[in-house]
């Protein structure tokens, strides 16, 4: 999967979606006008005799008012939903009443799921998302979010109980691919837009209810309101129909693609194929009874709501088609998805995939972005297994996670350390002695893995606790009045992962189609990488030249040993607004800079930090030559 092309395609689909939506609105306006016309014509004797003349005698103002009314309803409702979704993926989980699974849970089925998700997140180069569960028997799951930063994963109780680890991996791989290629952003937008169309039916229902409780049934006016209410409900149903058609048009093909991506990710077609077979073989299948399931039906792994009017409105391709696409030799037999009694949490050996993707050329680095493979999973499993168990346990607990971050940022030497300790949150401080020894001897990659693992626990902090945590982190970084490389990468990664959860998410707007206005920023970024390498001035010039050539721009550079992180932050802020199809060149340039004369650990960490800031997740198995 070409990550950048997929992002671009998802953006173009959004335009298609808005167009379809506009057509649906026009259709609904016409339908409402027709309905009112019919009601008016039928409710007066003059109208019954000669409806045509009666309607033509109505002032045009009537139709204008009706049309504007419809527009206000739809626009208002869509706007409201759009604003309600500002908290990102979490809003969908909360709308469905899902419960967050505690990151430190010891319940075997939940622990197994979290382990699978941790592996896949590290393998994809993103932080571990918050995981929710819905207590229903149907086997289903979804991932929602504007991007990798605010994504959440949610599974049903049925999934936890009936799928084995291999099948869980297949399902989670499918969901991760939706997030990585921009589908989930599209899906959230769909929910906001469709809410407007569904709103008309809601108004109809309100009118109906107010009419039956009122006393105005005696006069014809009451009958008209009743008719209007019923009519609006009918239009609302028509609106739902339009909505489902739009959803189907946009989302069905993407399900096949996500299935394929999952197979590529896990190199194991059986996992996801068996999961689909189990859905086919169980009584509830993937159906959900939740009242809000309709709104989010296109986001689920498999069909979540009953189909009326046949397969045209299905949000997902039929199960047999999906299974055959993965396993052409399928014999048509489903698997009975009975709850598993003996749960096993041993990862299936991805042995033999020890070596990573050789990143000996910048184009390989670009190809690796957003493209985790089986090797990535093996590497992720190895990374997690190689961490001291006590530190991993601490990372899964909010208190321990805070202590880990403090411990990574605290200066080792006594000078100033005591003063800093006095300033930090006392509860967390108590845990520091416990946690600090576990960090001894860990390299930067391992520390960053711990940070990625710690994210879901940090997301369970309350708002005041989060603000205190951020303040402490900033104070720790500022303490020695220098920002060193690791501190910078940590700060970027932490903020990026936590800010959307606590301060609202949004998808980064595309502000620049090409590099025309961004030459200075690109130069700043490449300079940072080159200077972080600790090479001689000549080597720096060569590396920069290689980078500039890869980006195909003519850039200026001055060798130095210091990296100015403030300027780098400003540059990256602008570069985030680059069009997805322009980003590969930038990544190529960064990679070219780093790969000249071998990659030092600082260059490696910086490359990862920069790629993360640009929303280009890099898998950990990138074997950058030392």
């Amino acid at each position, binding site marked *: 999967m070409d990550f950048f092309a997929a992002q671009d395609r998802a953006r173009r689909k959004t335009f298609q979606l808005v167009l379809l939506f506009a057509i649906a609105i026009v259709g609904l306006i016409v339908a409402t006008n027709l309905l009112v016309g019919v009601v008016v014509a039928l409710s007066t004797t003059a109208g019954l005799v000669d409806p045509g003349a009666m309607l033509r005698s109505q002032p045009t*103002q*009537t139709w204008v*008012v*009706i049309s*504007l*009314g419809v527009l*206000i*309803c739809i626009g*208002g*409702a869509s706007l*409201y939903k759009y604003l*309600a979704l500002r908290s990102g993926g979490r809003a969908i989980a*909360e*709308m469905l*009443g899902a*419960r*967050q699974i*505690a990151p*430190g*849970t*010891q319940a075997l089925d939940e622990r197994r799921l979290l382990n699978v998700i941790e592996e896949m997140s590290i393998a994809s180069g993103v932080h571990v998302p918050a995981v929710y569960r819905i207590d229903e028997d149907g086997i289903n799951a979804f991932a929602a979010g504007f991007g990798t930063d605010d994504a959440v994963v949610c599974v049903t109780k049925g999934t936890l109980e009936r799928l084995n680890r291999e099948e869980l991996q297949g399902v989670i791989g499918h969901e991760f691919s939706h997030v990585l290629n921009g589908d989930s952003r599209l899906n959230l937008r769909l929910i906001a837009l469709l809410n407007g169309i569904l709103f008309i039916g*809601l*108004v109809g229902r*309100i009118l109906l209810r107010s009419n039956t409780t009122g006393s105005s049934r005696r006069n014809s006016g009451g009958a008209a309101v009743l008719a209007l209410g019923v009519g609006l409900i009918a239009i609302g149903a028509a609106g739902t129909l339009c909505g489902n058609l739009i959803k189907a048009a946009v989302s069905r093909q993407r399900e096949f693609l996500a299935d394929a991506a999952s197979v590529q990710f896990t190199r194991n077609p059986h996992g996801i194929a068996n999961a689909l077979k189990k859905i086919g073989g169980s009584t509830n299948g993937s159906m959900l009874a939740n009242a809000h399931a309709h709104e989010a039906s296109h986001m689920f792994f498999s069909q979540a709501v009953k189909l009326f009017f046949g397969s045209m409105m299905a949000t997902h391709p039929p199960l047999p088609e999906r299974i055959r696409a993965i396993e052409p030799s399928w014999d048509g037999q489903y698997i009975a998805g009975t709850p598993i009694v003996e749960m096993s949490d041993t990862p299936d050996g991805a042995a033999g995939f020890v070596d990573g993707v050789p990143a000996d050329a910048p184009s390989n680095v670009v190809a690796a972005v957003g493209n985790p493979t089986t090797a990535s999973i093996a590497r992720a499993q190895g990374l997690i297994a190689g961490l001291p168990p006590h530190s991993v346990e601490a990372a899964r*607990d*909010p*208190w*321990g996670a805070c202590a880990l971050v403090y411990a990574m940022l605290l200066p080792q030497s006594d000078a100033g350390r005591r003063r800093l300790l006095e300033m930090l949150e006392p*509860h*967390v401080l*108590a*845990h520091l002695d*416990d946690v600090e020894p576990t960090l001894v001897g860990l390299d930067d990659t391992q520390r960053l893995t711990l940070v990625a693992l710690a994210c879901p626990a940090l997301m*369970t*902090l*309350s*708002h*005041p*606790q989060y603000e205190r945590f951020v303040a402490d982190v900033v104070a720790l970084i500022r303490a020695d009045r220098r920002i060193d490389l690791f501190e910078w990468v940590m700060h970027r990664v932490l903020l990026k992962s936590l800010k959307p959860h606590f301060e609202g998410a949004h998808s980064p707007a595309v502000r620049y189609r090409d590099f025309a206005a961004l030459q200075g920023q690109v130069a700043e970024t490449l300079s940072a990488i080159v200077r972080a390498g600790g090479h001689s001035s000549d080597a720096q010039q060569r590396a920069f030249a290689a980078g500039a050539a890869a980006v195909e721009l003519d850039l200026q550079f001055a060798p130095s040993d210091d990296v100015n992180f403030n300027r780098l932050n400003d540059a990256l802020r602008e570069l985030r607004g680059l069009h997805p199809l322009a980003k590969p060149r930038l990544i190529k340039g960064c990679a070219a800079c780093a790969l000249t004369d071998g990659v030092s650990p600082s260059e490696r960490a910086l490359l990862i930090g920069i790629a993360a800031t640009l929303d280009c997740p890099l898998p950990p198995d990138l074997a950058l030559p030392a």
Partner: protein
Amino acid sequence: MGFGTLTFLGIVVVLVVWFVSIYNKLVTLKNRYVNAFAQIEVQLKRRYDLIPNLIETAKGYLAHERGTLEAVVSARNQAVAGLAAAAKDPGNAGAMEQLGRAEGALGGALGRLNVVMEAYPDLKANQNMMQLSEELTSTENRVAFARQAYNDQVTSYNTYKQTFPPVLLAAFLGHGADASLLEFADHAAIQEAPKVKF
């Protein structure tokens, strides 16, 4: 039909959207404190699971202190029951108070056990006992942190519910009662050696 109808309709739409948004926000804030309570539950369960092991280890040494040990066991069972009741309805005033009292009683019983253990240096030096004691202290701190988060979420729910305009609708929408904070007696104060003051 005229612009009068349009304005009326506009007002209806605004009212409905306003209603819906207040309702949804109340539900969201409530779910957040329920979730926060689930985090406390995880830590408390861990804490309670450590105690039977502690009792087993101590039994051999503390043959003559059966009373103290039994007090711990019964306090622990009370706390487990209190937790189960509270988990069914987080934020309920009665349940939260009961859990708080049960935890306080458990802390007191453990404190007395600690005092008793001072007289048995063999027990204190036992590896298993040292590890368990340390884990117990660790869970106390984790619970404190989780409790702080829960209380923060409860406060933000109650505050929103009491501001205008949600205050007009809260009771009608099924969010009448304020959620209750979770308070524990201060264990540290119990276990600390008394300081002499002049």
